[in-house]
């Protein structure tokens, strides 16, 4: 018989053998590859430390999202554009780069957002402001999103949710895959460029049990809404996301991509995930508001997510 402690010692000795250095040519190869690789600014795994689980939920007053179109020439830190109602018509002589008003992406500390207006998305052609109406919302830097109750798990075990506010310039073509699991082989020949076409294509996707598109208006801008569901049939208890989606192309369950990108722009984090989308036409630009949550998310959180857009 092999005594347990003997096996442990043998394993340690066995595993201590072997290389411990990556060869220099491999480092060089990595460097070459990252030169040709863009960082993904899409929603991937996000994690928020649990700071206070005793968060009173359901206390949010109705939140409001204001989509403010402030042509690049009007964009200024002092411009009130975007906060409540119609776009500002008063150009500022002190034109600033968008970065000066964009949410910082270098903040390390996990600090809850203060209640009030929060600029979640800044582009040359628009800015999106959320009304944070309750505590314990956190920014997802660089992702144009805020999150709450993130417990570090993927769906379907998680209880958190996030609200994404993403924008693309006028004329951007969207690839809405015929099947999110087989996205590589179901890329449509025709790109979708309007909320109606995007929503219709999402609604027709295989595997997502999507709702039919509905007319919506957010911040005065018309569009379509649709809700997507990631099938629970992908669930493998104890498995990682990649393991659960192992049968999908590149182990990714991708909802849609945009022209010029080789991978999905938005993909699922796990089985059971629900995404309520508001797809808007903002003077030609496409804005997709995405309330994404896990099946175990409390109803109060789902209400808060919806309140950002409704």
């Amino acid at each position, binding site marked *: 018989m*092999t005594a347990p402690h003997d096996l442990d010692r*043998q394993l340690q000795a*066995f595993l201590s053998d072997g290389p411990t250095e990556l060869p220099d040519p491999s480092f060089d*190869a*990595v460097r070459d590859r*990252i030169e040709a690789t863009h*960082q993904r600014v899409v929603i991937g795994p996000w994690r928020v430390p649990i700071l206070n689980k005793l968060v009173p939920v359901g206390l949010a007053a109705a939140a409001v999202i204001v989509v403010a179109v402030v042509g690049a020439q009007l964009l200024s830190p002092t411009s009130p554009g975007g906060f409540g109602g119609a776009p500002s018509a008063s150009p500022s002589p002190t034109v600033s780069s968008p970065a000066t008003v964009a949410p910082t*992406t270098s903040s390390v500390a996990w600090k809850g957002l203060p209640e009030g207006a929060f600029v979640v998305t800044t582009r040359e052609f628009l800015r999106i402001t959320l009304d944070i109406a309750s505590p314990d919302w956190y920014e997802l830097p660089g992702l144009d999103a805020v999150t709450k109750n993130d417990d570090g798990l993927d769906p379907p075990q998680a209880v958190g949710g996030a609200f994404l506010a993403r924008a693309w310039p006028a004329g951007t073509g969207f690839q809405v895959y015929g099947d999110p699991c087989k996205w590589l082989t179901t890329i449509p020949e025709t790109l979708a460029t309007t909320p109606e076409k995007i929503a219709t294509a999402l609604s027709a996707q295989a595997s997502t049990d999507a709702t039919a598109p509905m007319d919506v208006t957010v911040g005065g801008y018309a569009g379509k809404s649709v809700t997507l569901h990631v099938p629970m049939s992908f669930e493998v208890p104890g498995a990682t996301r990649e393991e659960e989606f192992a049968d999908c192309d590149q182990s990714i369950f991708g909802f849609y991509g945009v022209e010029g990108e080789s991978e999905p722009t938005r993909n699922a984090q796990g089985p059971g995930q629900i995404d309520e989308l508001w797809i808007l036409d903002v003077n030609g630009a496409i804005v997709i508001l995405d309330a994404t949550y896990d099946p175990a998310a409390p109803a109060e959180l789902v209400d808060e997510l919806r309140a950002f857009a409704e």
Partner: protein
Amino acid sequence: MHTALVNQAKQGDREAFDALARLAGDRCMAIAFRILRDFDHADDAVQSALVTAWREIRALRDPERFEPWLHRILTNACYAEARRRRRWTEAIRLLPTEPGGPDEYLNVEIRDQLERGFQRLTVEQRAVLVFHHYLGLPLPDIAERLGLPLGTVKSRMHHAKRALRAGLEADARTSISQERTA
């Protein structure tokens, strides 16, 4: 690990990421080799993991957690490499591991038996063994690092050791039987 470099890399600084890769690459190679038991496959897995880390680093919330985050990516890269390996090779070749110095717990015969036994484990079981017996991480830390429930880690550890022990004992019985018939 070098929070400033991580933050710079999150801002798209390739030089900073290159520096991070050089700091973390050796340990990644050590882990990947021990999971995959093949130098070339481990090399591929590490390169793939580092490129993935560069692409996804903006989604890393806490720069202090870079190394555990990278190790999770690396482990998934090892899984992918193992799957690819299964797909493209009919048989898993044994690795030419360079024998180390004399070890009171490990003679050549036991080492060969462990090598065979290790090869028979699933790559997921091997990963748990490597993180525990090579990196010295406690099981809850492994669960966090690999994104698994603690129960799954315990289960993989239990089944891996049971399979290894059974393999060693079977080898020992075979060896005794051969000696008797000789």
